[in-house]
Structure formats: structure tokens, C-alpha cells
């Protein structure tokens, strides 16, 4: 009896000290966050819905974990019984214990909730205005790229973006079977002059481009790019939709999001206001204007149309394997769920021998 109670005492002390630690962290974090909230203006209304759901989920998970943890040791952790008697209470604890537990849970939940609130309010200055989610045609689990859109997007890139942005990871041959036929791409590549390796005389020479050549770069190196663009480097666009958070929506929102700065905000000479760009001041001017490009297939070239096409092209450039990936994923998830059913059947078949036994337990007390 004594060993059991002494063991339970140790357990209960550990749990109570944990409880004290919980009070401590909850109250300290509460104080810090309340201080932060009063000093920093709270844009709680502008919190994105997804952030609210994640914090609710996080708060709920924390709630559940704490509840489970505290209830496990509720039988042994009644504070008063240890000092009053050496007996251990079987019920869930006294009223004082209950209120302490609920206060701890509330404190932890509240600090979790408020922790996310301060992160969300700092978001816009750091990450730019949150971009909306556009209904991309290739968004579903079995949706392919719109290849006509990729073709138009490549045309937009060539005529509007390629003067400053490189796409050094894409080769001409990547376009074959995706947006153009082989003959078309060969003709397109042949229009470019490419510097090729030393010939037999040891000299570098230029030749017309082939399918295997990469897309041409507008500048020789980063320094030349910066010099030509007022110190700003136009990033390589090969992976841009993967290199930016929520890339596809971000790029579209950025390209179509140029507007006059709000009252009180002044942008220096050489920069332009774009709320989606972190910091608000971007070096690139508004490039997509209605009618800037004349599409081969006759589609009216509005700003939104060009934006959609060029972002589809950039998405393809960053993730050319998407269609194969979706096909493979659908197929194998389907196959593996069938295999799961088979495995479940096989397991139950093998275990049926043991599970249909009759056991006679002869316990000696």
C-alpha cells in the first residue's frame, strides 16, 4: 500500500509541477501578447479565413491534448487529498481542482489563439496584400493544362517579358508536343543566334539555335541585369510559380494589380506601387496593357487574358510534369485502396483462426 501511494505521490507531484508550468507559460504568454496587441494596431478583421481555421484547429488540438493529459492523472493529482490523507481519490477531483484545470485550459487555448492573431496582423506589411484564389482550369485533381493557353502565354512571354526576364532552365525542345509542333519550334529556335563552343581553330562561333538550346537570356549576367534596371534584378521565371508562396495566384495578382498608391503613401521615382508586392514598391512597371500582344489564334488580348495565359505558361514551365503526376497519383491511390481492401481481407483471413478460439482462463487468486 505504501509503495503504491508513494509512487502515486511522485506521479502527482510531476503532474502538478507540469500544471504549474502550464499556468506560468499561459499567463506569461498572455501578458506578452496582450502587451503586443495593445501596442501594435490589430487588423483582426483582415485576418484571412484560412488563418482563423488553422488557429481554431490548433487551439482545439491543444485543448484536446491538455484535457486528455490532465484527465489521465486526475485520480492521482488531487492536491488537497495528498496533504489531508494518504488515500487516493477515485473521482475526478475536487471543485478547486476542476476550476484550476479549466483555467489552465482556457489560458492555453487563449494564448494559442492570440499567438496566431499577432502573426496574422504582421502579415500584410511583410508579405504584401493577400492574393485571391483564382479558378485555374488546371486546378482539379484530373485537370490538364490548357495547352492553347500555354501557347498564348509563351507568345506573351516572348513579346513582353523576355526583354528583361530570363528563363534559363527551359529548352526549346520542352515546347514540342506541349504548345507547338516540332517544325514550329525548330523555326522559332533558328531565329536565335547562339554562341557555341570552340571550333577546331579554338574560336567561339555563333550559329542559329537548335531544339536543344535553352531560351535566350536578355542579359549576360546579374550585374548587367541590375545595371539596366536601376539596381533591381528581374528574376528568372523558370520556377517562379513554385518559388513564390501561392505562386500562380500571386503572379496573376501582381501582374494585374498595379494601381495608384493610396493617400499618404508615396513611392520614390523609379519604383511603382503594387499592393501585392511585399513592401508595396516594385521596380517593374505595368507591362500588361490591353492590346499589347496580338494573339495568333485571334483571342482578344485583354490584360486579364494575357495575365491568365502567361501565368499558365509559367506554371507549365515550373511544373511540366503536372499532368503525368496527376494521372499517376489518381491511378496509384486507386490501386492502393484496392490493395488495402485485399490486405484487410487477407489479415482477417489469417487471424480468423486465432480470433475464433475459445480461451479458458484459470486464474489463481
Amino acid at each position, binding site marked *: 500500500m505504501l509503495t503504491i501511494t508513494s509512487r502515486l505521490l511522485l506521479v502527482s507531484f510531476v503532474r502538478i509541477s507540469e500544471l504549474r508550468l502550464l499556468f506560468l507559460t499561459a499567463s506569461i504568454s498572455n501578458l506578452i501578447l496582450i502587451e503586443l496587441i495593445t501596442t501594435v494596431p490589430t487588423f483582426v478583421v483582415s485576418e484571412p479565413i484560412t488563418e482563423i481555421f488553422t488557429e481554431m484547429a490548433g487551439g482545439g488540438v491543444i485543448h484536446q491534448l491538455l484535457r486528455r493529459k490532465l484527465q489521465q492523472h486526475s485520480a492521482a493529482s488531487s492536491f488537497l487529498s495528498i496533504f489531508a490523507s494518504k488515500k487516493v481519490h477515485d473521482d475526478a477531483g475536487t471543485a478547486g481542482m476542476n476550476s484550476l484545470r479549466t483555467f489552465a485550459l482556457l489560458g492555453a487555448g487563449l494564448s494559442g489563439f492570440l499567438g496566431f492573431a499577432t502573426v496574422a496582423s504582421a502579415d500584410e506589411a511583410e508579405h504584401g496584400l493577400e492574393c485571391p484564389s483564382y479558378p485555374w*482550369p488546371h486546378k*482539379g485533381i*484530373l*485537370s*490538364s*493544362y*490548357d*495547352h*492553347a*493557353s500555354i*501557347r498564348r502565354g509563351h507568345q506573351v512571354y516572348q513579346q513582353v517579358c523576355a526583354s528583361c526576364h530570363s528563363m534559363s532552365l527551359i529548352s526549346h525542345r520542352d515546347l514540342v*508536343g*506541349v*504548345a*507547338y*509542333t516540332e*517544325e*514550329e519550334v525548330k523555326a522559332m529556335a533558328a531565329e536565335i543566334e547562339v554562341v557555341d563552343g570552340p571550333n577546331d581553330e579554338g574560336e567561339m562561333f555563333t550559329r542559329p539555335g537548335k531544339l536543344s538550346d535553352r531560351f535566350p537570356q536578355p542579359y549576360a549576367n546579374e550585374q548587367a541585369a541590375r545595371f539596366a534596371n536601376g539596381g533591381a534584378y528581374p528574376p528568372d521565371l523558370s520556377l517562379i510559380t513554385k518559388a513564390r508562396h501561392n505562386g500562380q495566384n500571386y503572379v496573376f495578382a501582381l501582374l494585374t494589380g498595379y494601381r495608384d498608391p493610396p493617400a499618404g503613401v508615396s513611392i520614390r521615382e523609379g519604383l511603382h506601387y503594387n499592393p501585392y508586392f511585399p513592401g508595396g514598391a516594385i521596380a517593374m512597371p505595368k507591362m500588361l496593357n490591353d492590346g499589347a500582344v496580338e494573339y495568333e*489564334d485571334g483571342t482578344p488580348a485583354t490584360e486579364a487574358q494575357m495575365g491568365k495565359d502567361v501565368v499558365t505558361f509559367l506554371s507549365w514551365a515550373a511544373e511540366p510534369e503536372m499532368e503525368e503526376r496527376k*494521372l499517376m497519383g*489518381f*491511378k496509384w491511390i*486507386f*490501386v492502393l485502396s484496392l490493395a488495402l481492401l485485399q490486405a484487410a*481481407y487477407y489479415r482477417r*483471413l489469417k487471424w480468423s483462426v486465432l480470433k475464433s478460439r475459445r480461451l479458458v482462463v484459470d486464474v489463481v487468486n
Partner: protein
Amino acid sequence: MEHTTRRSQGGLFEGLYRLIMRRNSIYVTFVIAGAFAGERAVDYGVRKIWEHNNVGTTFQPLEATIRPKETQLMNPSTYEP
């Protein structure tokens, strides 16, 4: 005893068991052949769903619009004066 005899008569799983799982050699053959045939069937099915879901956006209809233009270009007699 009566209920056991009735059990061993019917049932889809019972029939399947008697067909393929009595001998291990038959079971293994069934698994390998079934995997081969099954994968072909699943590939066909998924590709059919994909094509149904993505009418007009794959490269094939695009190629069909490009090709006639190319044959026109390669054939000088079709040039209009």
C-alpha cells in the same frame, strides 16, 4: 453442425477462396497475371476519365489546328494570289 455446412456453400468470398487460394502456386499466378491485366485496365480507365474531363484543352486538338496550316504552307499551290 448445420450452420457450418450452410456457410461453406454460398458467398462471393468463399467462391473466390476455393478458386484461387487453395494452392499457393495458383494464388501467385493469379496475383502476377492479375497485376499485369489490372494495371492495363486501370491505365485505360484513368486515361478515359482524363480525356473526358479535359475535352479541348490537351495538345491533340491544338495540334489539329496547327497541322492544316503547315500542310498549306508546304504546298505552294494552295497559296492565294
